[in-house]
């Protein structure tokens, strides 16, 4: 019990770090909150555009603006911030409608519309919408001499929508949020848990303290067991906090089979991280070095395995190297859980195989820790 009490005393001094990483996790999750509405119906993606119209009174220009208001998010921005807005992807496209645009169109001319775009998927979609609109506008122009009828026909054609059927019954918006929350938890678990456990172990292994412990009446097995259980309890407590925060922030998806799988996967990863922490704690003797080494491991794993940048954006070569890290298997499992359509055995088998890999990593780290401990003991 004395070991456990000492553990709690040291842990109490580290509560700032636990709060810091929990805070970062919450801040990141809120920052990444999806704007997409939850639901089982099809929802078209809407690119963000800014329209600068120099033909404010013209009917044709107004109709173009209305069309974009219907199919995109038209943003209201200060002109000073326009270039920054494009650079930082606040808008995917800037559309400039020239002066006398409506009159020129009605006179059968082909006035140019100036655009600036980010060149990404959303910008391509905005471009398709613009081309789609201009196609109808210019093909109908010579046919209809009456402006009202012209615009009416144009809008009727543009309003035609094809039928769409959504096969998936998954709530993609909520699941995306759950996936990104648990992917980011990779960093919080590694940086928070591994750092604190390593720090506490290094304090217990401090030479004068270690010597006093060795000559005490306490059996070294009891001592080690107490230390192991204290660390494990802390790990489970930290995992519990992160899952609880997940339930509060993500909500809906967590109260389903998906939530159970996400939580179980994070539990396995927490246990694996604990084993890694024991391994590093045994390996690193310099207390000052812990912060640097843990930071490099946590940031490295998070960047290379897809905790910060979505996996689909990472180069194949990086993902290939990432296979040797437990974080890769943890995040890969989250991705597989996210894609599950049902919980039939055939669908969940790959998820269980990934669980197996995480358990294997835990066994390897435990084995290495024991090996190093024995070596150190025999040297002593």
């Amino acid at each position: 019990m004395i070991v456990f009490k000492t553990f709690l005393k040291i842990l109490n001094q580290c509560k700032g770090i636990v709060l810091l990483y929990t805070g970062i996790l919450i801040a990141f999750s809120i920052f990444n909150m999806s704007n997409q509405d939850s639901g089982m119906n099809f929802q078209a993606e809407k690119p963000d555009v800014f329209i600068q119209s120099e033909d404010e009174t013209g009917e044709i220009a107004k109709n173009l603006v209305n069309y974009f208001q219907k199919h995109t998010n038209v943003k209201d921005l200060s002109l000073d911030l326009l270039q920054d807005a494009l650079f930082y992807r606040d808008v995917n496209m800037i559309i400039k409608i020239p002066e006398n645009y409506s009159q020129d169109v009605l006179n059968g001319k082909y006035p140019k519309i100036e655009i600036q775009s980010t060149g990404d998927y959303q910008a391509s979609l905005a471009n398709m919408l613009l081309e789609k609109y201009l196609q109808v506008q210019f093909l109908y122009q010579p046919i209809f001499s009456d402006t009202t009828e012209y615009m009416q026909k144009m809008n009727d054609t543009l309003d035609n929508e094809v039928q769409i059927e959504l096969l998936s019954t998954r709530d993609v918006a909520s699941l995306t949020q759950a996936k990104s929350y648990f992917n980011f938890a990779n960093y919080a678990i590694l940086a928070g848990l591994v750092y604190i456990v390593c720090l506490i172990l290094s304090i217990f292994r401090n030479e004068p303290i270690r010597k006093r412990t060795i000559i005490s009446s306490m059996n070294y097995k009891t001592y080690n067991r107490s230390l192991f259980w204290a660390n494990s309890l802390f790990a489970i407590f930290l995992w519990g906090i992160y899952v609880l925060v997940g339930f509060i922030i993500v909500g809906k998806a967590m109260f389903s089979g998906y939530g159970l799988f996400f939580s179980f996967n994070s539990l396995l990863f927490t246990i694996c991280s604990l084993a890694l922490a024991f391994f590093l704690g045994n390996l690193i003797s310099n207390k000052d070095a812990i912060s640097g080494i843990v930071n490099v491991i946590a940031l490295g794993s998070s960047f290379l395995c897809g905790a910060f940048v979505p996996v689909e954006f990472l180069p194949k070569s990086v993902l290939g190297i990432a296979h040797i890290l437990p974080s890769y298997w943890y995040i890969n499992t989250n991705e597989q859980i996210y894609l599950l359509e049902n919980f039939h055995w055939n669908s969940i088998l790959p998820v269980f195989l990934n669980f197996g890999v995480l358990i294997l990593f835990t066994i390897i780290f435990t084995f290495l820790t024991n090996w190093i401990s024995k070596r150190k003991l025999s040297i002593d």
Partner: protein
Amino acid sequence: MFFHNFVYNFKILFRSKALIFWTFAFPLILGTLFFLAFKDIETKEKLDIFSIGIVEQENTEFERILKQAFVSLDDTSSEALFHIIYCDEDKAKNLLENNEITGYVLLSQDPKVVIGNNGIDETILKTVTETIVEQTAIFQTIFNEKGKEEGPLNPAIVMQNIEQEIQNKLNQIEEMIDDKSPQKLSYTMIEFYTLIAMTCLYGGMLAMTSVHKTLANQSCTGKRVMVTKAKKGILVFSSVLASFVVQLIGLSLLFLYTIFILKVDYGNELLFIILLSFMGSLAGLSLGSLVGILFKKNENTKVGVLLSITMLGCFLSGMMGITMKYMIDKNIPFLNLINPAAMITDGFYSLVFYESKSRFYFNILCLFLFSSLMIFLSIYGLKEDKYDSI
């Protein structure tokens, strides 16, 4: 005395493994991680060919026209948008369930798009299908209107004329869109600019350590140094200068590594880059000195304070999310005017992406004012420190 203290401080700083790790090695490691994680992000954000299924149902003339339109967008054509798999409905459904296609189109008089999930590819498939269907509606409308104007028509001749007319106009549409998108839009560069900002501010740790080891009321080394006959001002100044030189060496290494190995674009104007780095380092140094002088705590607490200020500044300037600085500029612009990390990041951004230098000079001015204020407060803090015994 000045030179003597300068040399010894220089040696002390270089022998501190922890300081060298955080100011030299950590930025290099972080830069490498940024490079590995972000190197493909902008390429993968661009519209790429994705797989879809096309299912013919009744083999009517209308279905043939629709199918022909999709063929023109197949990956074998010049305007490739899709990799198309032509199959029956069961096969298409199976492919969709296995995530091998984004969705499939059931061709009929009233075509239907079947998709697995909501998403950008799915929206593009829907938009393209609607555009194709729309073209046939336009065709029909023009045919009907021409019939009203010109009386009974020979359908075959009219259709051929309309088809030709439509094609001519469609070719002109692309010319009506004048694309003036800026060429330099690599927004991931911001990550590397924040990295430079972080290194400049981390340099404050060097100045703080030097000050800590020089002042009598803060460390034992300081007590020994201060009992000498040398003036306090000279000792503090030479210590801070030594840390400035070490910081510039670390920064130069980072520049060399990011420019030649990671191919980061800082613009072509070397003098401006040096000026900005110099001012950024000065801001970090003055901040570190102030923390070292004002906080009469142990060294670890001071490092914690400085690291927290630096990381908060870098967070607000976009290190953990590229758009953060823009969001602050848009909503709380004052915050970026007192954040040296944001000034350094914005300085590089304006240097690379803006032709006018006014924004760059404004950032330099802000950094100068920030450093002056920190130095003024540090001098004031030093003058206030008077003690008969410690």
